[in-house]
Structures are given as structure tokens and as C-alpha cells.
């Protein structure tokens, strides 16, 4: 994690980190400024969640979740463990089904209609905490699978596309290897490239750096910053405050299945309104 190398760095330093003054990533905004917002308010919203409710058995995991994400907008979702963050973004590509309310992705409503679902899954890429690469396929095959079978692209063209994205995530030389031969950070970058090969309009990230060793977090975050700079619509569950400050147009705080607060990174991190958010912020500061 940026700015968190030393065992001796105390809460004071970390606090600065959250405030964004002592952070190489935030510095990048000020100097480079390449992550300027790409929100297009003219276009129809990329994602609409309207009073979405979901239960696991008797457990009410999503409570009246309302969320609108504009095309090109970058949303960071944070909140305590078990608050329903994963469930929420997994509802967007229907890895989980919601029971009440409406979800529209790129104007198409999610329902039991298989064709609508296929259409949505082509447009939405997902990156998981545990990478979920296919261990029996080479890196290149991992990336060409969906273009070939879902987009019906000729193999050669799919391979060129895959190499292009592998170059973008800076690991073209690993194309012939297998996932088990790569480090965690490299695997996660392959997972990002694999999702990008479908040329999705929306990317979902579910704690993409949580399973990584500290020294690999930056390489993955850098890749995501690059993606954000290109204007990709992103929803990202993460606790990387530096990343959130640098790229997020909006930070959404969830607790116990509800969206509790939502606003710019500054509003959410520096000026929390609710006790729950204050408690959460103090806890992640202590936790790190």
C-alpha cells in the first residue's frame, strides 16, 4: 500500500495518508492530473439500482439500495466486512439475484430473461479478490477465451487483442505461461486484462488488492489508475484510500446492507456525517 511501508509509521502518518497529503498517489493527481473526471452527464446512466433488496435466507443483506452510476463515473465502495459490498456489485452482473427493486445496466433491466443477461455480461467485466484465473489455460488462452467464444472473434484476432491488453498491463512476456507460475500481482493484472479483452463498458472490482502481498498492491492499483484515466466506468470495492482519493468521483459507504453515505472522497473521508462512518474510518486507520 502506498505510504505504508514502515512498521514504525504511526497513526499520525496514516492519518495524513487518509487526508491525502502524504501520499504518492495523491501527489500524482496534483502533478500529473491525468485522472481527471470523465463523467458524462449527458449520456444515460450506466447503472441504476432502484430500491434493491436482497436476502440470503432470512438474512437481509441489501436494504433499499439506491445507486446511480453515470457513464464514465468512478465509484469506490467501502464499508465494514459483511456490509453487503460484494453482494451489491455481484447483483450488477447477476452473479447474485436480487429479490426486490430494479437494476438497469446500460439501459437493460436485469431479469430472468437469459438474452438480457447475456447482453449485460458482455458489457460488464469483473475482477475478483481471488483473481479466479483458469489454472489449466495459459495466460493468453485465459484472455482469448471470452472474445473467441462469446464475441465469436477469430482466434488470431483475439490473440492480437489479448497481447495488446497484456502489454497495457505490462506483462506481455508472460503470455505463454500458466497462472500458477505468476505472482499474485501479475495474476491480478492478467485478470484485469482478461476482463478488458471483452471490451466492456463497465468494470467491477471486488477488493482486487486484498489478497495481495503489500509489495504487489501498487502494480495493480497503477493498472486501475490507468484504466480510470481512460474514462472507464468503474465500481470498485476497496479500502485503498489513496486510490479512492486519486480516481474516485464518488465514494459510497455501506454498512449493514444500506448505503449510509455517498459523496466526493473529500466529503466522505474528511467530513463524515454519520457516527457509523466515523467509527469505520477510525477503525481502518487503526487496523492498518
Amino acid at each position, binding site marked *: 500500500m502506498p505510504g505504508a511501508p514502515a512498521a514504525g509509521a504511526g497513526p499520525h502518518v496514516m492519518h495524513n495518508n487518509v487526508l491525502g497529503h502524504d501520499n504518492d498517489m495523491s501527489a500524482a493527481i496534483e502533478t500529473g492530473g491525468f485522472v481527471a473526471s470523465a463523467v458524462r452527464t449527458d449520456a444515460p446512466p450506466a447503472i441504476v439500482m432502484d430500491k434493491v433488496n436482497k436476502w440470503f435466507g432470512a438474512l437481509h443483506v441489501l436494504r433499499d439500495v439506491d445507486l446511480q452510476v453515470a457513464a464514465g463515473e468512478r465509484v469506490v465502495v467501502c464499508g465494514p466486512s459483511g456490509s453487503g459490498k460484494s453482494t451489491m456489485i455481484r447483483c450488477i*452482473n447477476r452473479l447474485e439475484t436480487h429479490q426486490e427493486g430494479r437494476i438497469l445496466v446500460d439501459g437493460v433491466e436485469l431479469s430472468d430473461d437469459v438474452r438480457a443477461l447475456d447482453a449485460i455480461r458482455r458489457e460488464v467485466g469483473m475482477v475478483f479478490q*481471488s483473481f479466479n484465473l*483458469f489454472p*489449466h489455460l495459459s495466460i493468453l488462452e485465459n484472455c482469448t477465451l471470452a472474445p473467441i467464444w462469446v464475441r465469436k472473434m477469430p482466434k488470431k484476432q483475439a490473440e492480437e487483442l489479448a497481447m495488446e491488453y497484456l502489454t497495457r498491463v505490462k506483462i506481455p512476456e508472460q503470455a505463454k505461461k500458466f497462472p*500458477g507460475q505468476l505472482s499474485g500481482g501479475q495474476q491480478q493484472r492478467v485478470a484485469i486484462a482478461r476482463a478488458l479483452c*471483452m471490451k466492456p463498458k463497465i468494470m467491477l472490482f471486488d477488493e482486487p488488492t486484498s489478497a495481495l502481498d503489500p509489495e504487489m498492491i501498487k502494480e495493480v492499483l497503477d493498472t486501475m489508475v490507468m484504466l480510470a484515466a481512460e474514462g472507464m466506468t468503474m465500481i470498485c470495492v476497496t479500502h485503498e484510500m489513496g486510490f479512492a482519493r486519486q480516481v474516485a468521483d464518488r465514494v459510497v459507504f455501506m454498512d449493514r446492507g444500506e448505503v449510509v453515505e455517498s459523496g466526493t472522497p473529500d466529503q466522505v473521508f474528511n467530513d463524515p456525517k454519520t457516527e457509523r462512518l466515523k467509527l469505520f474510518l477510525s477503525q481502518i486507520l487503526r487496523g492498518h
Partner: protein
Amino acid sequence: MSDITLNAAAANPEATPRNPPVATTGPIAWVRENLFSGWLSTAVTLLLGYLIIRSVVGFVDWAFINAIWSVPVVNGVAQTQSCRELHGAGACWAVVTEKHRFMLFGTYPYDEHWRPAIVCVLFVALYIVSAMRRFWNWTLIPIWAVMLTLIGILMWGGVFGLSYVPQERWGGLPITLILATFGLAFAFPLSILVALGRRSNLPAIKVLCVLYVELIRGVPLISLLFMASVMFPLFLPEGMNIDKLLRAQIAIILFAGAYLAEVVRGGLQALPKGQYEAADAMGLTYWQKTGLIILPQALRLVIPPLVNTFIGFFKDTSLVLIIGIFDLLTAGKTAIVEPAWQGFGVEVYVFVGLIYLVFCFAMSKYSQALETDLNRHSRR
């Protein structure tokens, strides 16, 4: 911390890795450590060594030194007097020399034995081709179709100037290979469908698959074979008769299918949920996901139990002897019914056993090689 390492390296710049002390490596050290590490271990080693040497010497005496390889035949009757005079001190391989064609090909017309012999070679060729990963694609289907047609033509005849041989006269090794090959070739795909069905979201399919597996697994193969041979014809309209071999074949397919399905299901369950989710998230259809992601991984996880079941069924085909089908084992048993050869069962069973062993051992070795080959890349 890093300073300390640096200093250590600087103090001893040419620190090369040292070899371990000689006394702890090499064959002599191994023997001392594993065979003679104490008085008890020494005693056990000596005792077992004595027993092993004794039985090996005894076997060599029986099987080779004292053995009789052929006997004279007078007026078509084998003169086994010399064998009987051995009183078991040596093997009478003459029974194999005389009877091997009957054991291998049963009651198939003697002059036409070259046909089942070619069939056996074709089967082995088919196994070898199917075992090569280079052929693991659609080409395998036409190869099988052509081979099986050839095998059918050779066995039945009736075309191309080959004389017709009814199925009742087939016997020996070809029967065993037919039952095992068709049995597993159909049971394996069936078992994959059943295993997938058991995990289906559709209740009707799920119930059907569970019922099939539980019902079939709950009865012995012998009773299934009896049902196939005795009861099944009762349900058929009068005059219609399905070949006995085919009925036994179906019983074996159904039985093997149920067992293999459980093995395959184990592999499906061992796959992490994330693999299913990643495939879903990229928009693959159910069959694409199953064929490209799930099965290739699930099946390689279960190669050892899968081959274990294959080997079991290869040998279980010999149970068809109870409904009077003339497989390899039945042919062997029948060979020693002849008065001249009565009492030489051991030699016959050693011969038949060796044939089974060759096939099963090949399967076992192949599965080990396949497993290492396929798992080369995955660190699990």
C-alpha cells in the same frame, strides 16, 4: 537485518554450498538407515529377505526349471501323463500351449481365428490412439467409428467374402475387450451427464439423476446381469429378441455409469466456486463453461479414482460368465473341463491373469503419466 546479511556475505565472499557428510548419503547409508537401524529392524529384514528369496526360488523352480512346455498328442487327445507325474512340483504350461487359442478366442471357428486376433490388435491400436493427447479433439470420433465398424465386420463377417459367424460363437479376449471398451466408452460420457445433472438447478433432472445413481449403485452387478439376461426379454414383445451380449453390455454401461458419475461429481465439487463465477461473469453459456472451464479441471482432479474405477470394471466384465457369455475367463475355465486337462487350473488362471494384468497395468501407468503431464502447470 539486510545489513547483517551483507556483512556475512562480505566476510566470506566465496562461500560455496558444501556437500553433506559422506556417511549420511549413498546406498550404504541408505541400507544402514532403512534396513539395519536396530536389532529389531535387522531381524525383520533378515526374516523377510529369507521369505522373499525362498518364494522367488520356489516360483522359478515351479514355473521354469521343472515346467513342462508341451506334451504329445495322440489321436487328438493330449497325453498329460508326464505333467501328472510332476505332482505339482512344476508347471504344466502344455495346457497353455495346447489350449491358448481356445482361451483367447473361445468357440470362434478355428480356421477364422485370425479375425478375432486382428480385432484384438485393432482394440489395442484404438487404445493407443485414444491415449495420445494429440488426438483429443473431434478426429477421435471418426477414428472410433471406423475402428468399430472394422471390428464389427471382422467379428460377424458375412461381407467381403468373410464367412458369417453368429455372436453365440464369439468368445475369449475379444468379448472381454468389447464389453470393457463399449462399456467404458458409453458409461463415461453418461456419467458426466449424470454428474452434471445431479448438480442441476432443474429439480426434475436432478431427481432423475439421483434416482438413477442410487438405484443402480444399490444392486450388485450380478443381479443386474441376471435381470438383463432373464427378465429383460420378458418385457419385450414376442418374437423380438435383443442379442444377449448387447443386453449384458447395456447392464454394464448402466452400472459403470452410476459409479463413474459419483467420481466425476467429486471432481465437480472440488472446483472452487470462483471458477464458475469467473466463467459466468465473462458471459460463457452453460455448455461453454462446462466444456471449457469446469470439466477439463474437474476431470484431471479425479484421474486417479477414475482410472481406479476403469480398472475395476475391466475386470468386472468377467462376471458375464454367470449368464453364459464366453469371455476370457469363461474360456479359460472351459478349457480345463476337458478330462485330459483337469487339474491344471493354476496354469490357466496364471495365463488369464497375466492378460488382465497387462491391460490393467498399462491403464495404471498411463494414468500416472497423464496426471503428471496435465498437472505440470497447476500449483494446487
